């Protein structure tokens, strides 16, 4: 591993999406975004729906939307377990809008508390996805 770099891994249940040494990665944590550099203190956080930004050479080289999950940080590594991940460039605006509308309708229809929680989550994911698509 190159000096001063952090081994960044992004995995979804379906596959290993990304595994490479990067200079810095910014992850949308449950309680605020956090940046991970080499030698970060060990840290586990929930991830809220949002965009992961990979920094290399002082610039953002990759932006990936995740719909939530968990991040594990060790001094040498940053592993993000995402529920679903799409590169920001690949987000379909139309589909995202449709998803947001559907999610809001579902939320309005749900009566059961458990289902309501789930619908609320769906809306949050869809909103974050729209925000990511608009940039």
């Amino acid at each position, binding site marked *: 591993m190159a000096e001063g770099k952090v081994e960044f*891994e992004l*995995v*979804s*249940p*379906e*596959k*290993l999406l990304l595994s490479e040494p990067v200079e810095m990665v910014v992850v949308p*944590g*449950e*309680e605020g975004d956090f940046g991970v550099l080499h030698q970060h*203190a*060990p*840290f*586990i*956080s*929930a991830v809220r729906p949002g965009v992961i930004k990979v920094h290399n050479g002082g610039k953002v080289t990759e932006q990936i939307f995740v719909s939530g999950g*968990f991040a*594990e940080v*060790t*001094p*040498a*590594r940053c*592993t993000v*377990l995402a529920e679903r991940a799409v590169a920001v460039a690949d987000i379909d605006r139309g589909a995202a809008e449709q998803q947001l509308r559907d999610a809001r309708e579902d939320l309005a229809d749900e009566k059961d508390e458990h289902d309501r929680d789930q619908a609320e989550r769906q809306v949050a994911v869809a909103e974050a996805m729209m925000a990511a698509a608009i940039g």
Partner: protein
Amino acid sequence: MPNLKDLRVRIASVKATQKITSAMKMVAAAKLRRAQEQAEAARPYAERMERMLGSLAAASAGQAGAPALLAGSGRADVHLLVVGTADRGLCGGFNSNIVRNSRQLIRSLVGDGKTVKILCVGRKGRDALRREYGDMIIDTIEGVTKPRPTFDKSESIAERITRMFEDGEFDVCTLIYAEFRSAITQIVTRQQLIPFAPVAVDEEVAEAGGGQKASYEYEPSEEEILEALLPRNLAVQIYKGILENNASEQGSRMTAMDSATRNAGDMINNLTLIYNRTRQAVITRELIEIISAKEAL
């Protein structure tokens, strides 16, 4: 002496069977490649999830107020076995190996005076266990691999199991499936899902943490993360089990059909040999008859 016509019919029938088995082998090989890719692609997530949970579990082990999914219900009286098999047969020893392993487990649990409940994932498991343990089977889930295994399906199974656990319907949950090694070897594996049994914490984690495993910081809080992570882990482990099973099934079927095709080939050779010998014998006999008849004149 075998009848010539019977032999011809027999050879034709074995040939037809061979055609079917070799076609099945080809289909299984194609499916195997896809299933194997999918199973291998899913491994990193499951492994990392397990690692993360392992270090979390180690940190909160023995603490009061640990989530029930981690600590268990405090009893071990009712066991839920999730038996993963295929929906279809003709795949060598795949289904029967899993069923045999499950039977052993059931017998030893019942011997210890425990109550056993069975949730079959896959029709063949239910078919095989129904006769002996029909009253223990609570439900069967079919078609998890149709058209292909998805995470959503595993999630709904996991949700169901979680709900049952919360309702106090069982204390310990074990998943039985065949881990895919290669097309020839599949290893029947028992994995305890609830309470979560941490795999041996690997060296790397201890090393990366500077020798202190429990030095992680948590955001939001340890309990909240554990509460979200545990049901998710359940879904991931079930998903992994289904994928491994799917790959194992196809691998097992491919090997079984390969040897069936080869056996059919051997049989055809044998039958053809007998057929030709018989044919020659018939000709010889006819000649002898003609010659001796002529000499008698």
